């Protein structure tokens, strides 16, 4: 009996030790919301490195051309990243039996895919679909903070993240058009770099998307860590077109309107694809051909809560709204963003009414 007592006590101790490491309380900070906002904005150019996990609950339709985006927002992703500044960084998505790295230098990005044993260079297009590097906490937080004023933030309790007590800041969208209820950001008290970001949809208890450091360093990574030399036997290829959004932006002979649903078109989107609004109220409008629109329309039609009419297919997944215009067999406009359903419908009406067809190119 005494022997069993020793074993049981030892087991409980081990379980408690593992559980305890994950449940250490966070020390509260008395720094105000305005000061935290200033700190997090001041840290946008800060160097850092770390191990990151993102977790998305957004079950997006899985179709060719968009499958990577669906995985990013609907699954768990683990990454290691080394960040000098906005021009020089490396983000490695860790896979069970491989790795996909993005290495950014100046205005080009090199993509290393171990499982394909392939390295591809591409220029940074004006418009592209989201990728892993957009979802690391500092980059995601910087995007959500666009347009946010000191009146839109408030303090929330600190949370233990990446081994430190991180003071928290709640961001409330400044625009009524946003489908995001709020976004919470916890930052490193030393550097101000965001360590954890949660995006909450209207009326949801749990976050629709979370990105957090599990390990973090505010030290500047070495040059070697943000560099890449292709291994022996690998020739670096070049991609003219990065993804479906880039292709549409370069080649579609149409121009979207300057303003939809009361939101201005971003100055950077001056070709076929329109980006409207900013921060937590942002939307993209992509013209797509029938061959891409049809499978997407079919996938959207099978998504829970789809709202389908003869000329429009709409889905809301957490805070993300998606509308595809046109009927079966036709191309259409794909609108996606963190806008309310009503705002997206208005935007779709405006895009259809005010787009300009340039003729065959």
């Amino acid at each position: 009996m005494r022997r069993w007592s020793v074993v049981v006590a030892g087991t409980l101790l081990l379980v408690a030790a593992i559980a305890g490491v994950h449940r250490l309380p966070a020390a509260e900070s008395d720094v105000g919301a305005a000061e935290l906002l200033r700190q997090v904005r001041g840290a946008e150019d800060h160097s850092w490195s770390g191990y990151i996990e993102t977790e998305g609950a957004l079950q997006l339709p899985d179709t060719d051309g968009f499958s990577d985006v669906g995985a990013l927002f609907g699954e768990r992703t683990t990454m290691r990243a080394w960040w000098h500044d906005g021009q020089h960084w490396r983000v490695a998505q860790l896979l069970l039996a491989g790795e996909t790295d993005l290495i950014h230098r100046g205005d080009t990005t090199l993509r290393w895919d171990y499982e394909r044993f392939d390295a591809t260079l591409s220029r940074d297009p004006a418009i592209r679909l989201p990728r892993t590097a957009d979802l690391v906490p500092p980059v995601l937080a910087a995007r959500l903070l666009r347009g946010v004023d000191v009146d839109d933030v408030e303090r929330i309790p600190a949370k233990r993240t990446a081994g430190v007590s991180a003071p928290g800041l709640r961001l409330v969208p400044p625009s009524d058009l946003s489908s995001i209820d709020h976004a919470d950001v916890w930052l490193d008290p030393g550097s101000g770099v965001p360590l954890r970001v949660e995006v909450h949809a209207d009326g949801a208890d749990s976050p629709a998307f979370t990105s957090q450091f599990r390990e973090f360093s505010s030290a500047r990574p070495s040059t070697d860590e943000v560099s890449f030399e292709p291994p022996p036997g690998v020739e670096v290829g070049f991609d003219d077109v990065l993804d479906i959004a880039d292709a549409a932006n370069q080649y579609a002979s149409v121009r979207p309107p300057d303003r939809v649903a009361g939101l201005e078109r971003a100055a950077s989107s001056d070709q076929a694809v329109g980006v409207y609004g900013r921060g937590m109220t942002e939307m993209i409008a992509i013209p797509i051909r029938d061959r891409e629109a049809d499978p997407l329309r079919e996938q959207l039609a099978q998504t829970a809560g789809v709202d389908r009419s003869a000329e429009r297919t709409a889905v809301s997944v957490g805070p993300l709204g998606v509308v595809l215009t046109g009927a079966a067999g036709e191309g259409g406009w794909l609108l996606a963003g963190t806008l309310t359903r009503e705002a997206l419908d208005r935007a779709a009406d405006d895009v259809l009414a005010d787009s300009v067809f340039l003729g065959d190119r």
Partner: protein
Amino acid sequence: MIRVELVKLVRNRRTWTTIAVIDALPVLVAVLLAVTDIGPRPGTGPAFLSAVLADGTLFPLAALGIVLPLFLPLAVAITAGEAIAGEAQQGTLRYLLIRPVGRTRLLVAKLVSIMAFVVLAVLVVAATAYLLGALLLGNESVSATGPASVSGSAMSTPELVGRTLLALGYAMLCMLGVAAVGLFLSTIARSPLGAALGTMALLVASTLLLTLDAADVLRAYLPTRYWLAFVDLFRDPILWRDVLRGVLLQLAYVVVFLGAAWANFMTKDVTD
């Protein structure tokens, strides 16, 4: 006592038959890859298998990825299940304990014997795979600068050998956790098959729960959670996070289940 158990292990024909069966699968895979030249699609199949057509020196790792999820733990579970329950079933446990040897020493000798089996099995698989990789599979990226790490940087041959040895050691440690569970169940079950099946049930349940988001709270405790973390030894720089967690978790399993085996075996009423 330990020497006796080791001699028994090495002389037992079943030991070598089991190892041969474990080894047969990677051998078959190597032959098929060499004959057809068709590797798994990128992102599918066991770790490193899609890379071996270009670089045969990685085949020991691919072989490890092939046997680690099922074949090796199954063999360890059967061997560990035999340790005490097998002796009891054959009616030899009583005679073993008549000898002037403590039960703790017998238990330790059994564990050492199981680990010797694991080391033998892993080394045979790795050595066979190395030979097959060199003879049958590709050597495109083997140059003066060596093969590539998972992160795309060049690895020197000594670096590759060092990391491969670390990966083999890590796999052996993972199997030590399985051996501890099997040994504990072997002190409880009346038949070795029951002990082996119990061990496998735990591993299958662990693998299943890992795929379930609702079981997130249990992930850190599941025995198979970090088994494939040996891949992280081939990233650049090495990602120690999951490897270290895997080592600690396996040691925790060893301490807990060996302790339980010891507590049970010391007070067990041996009649067989």
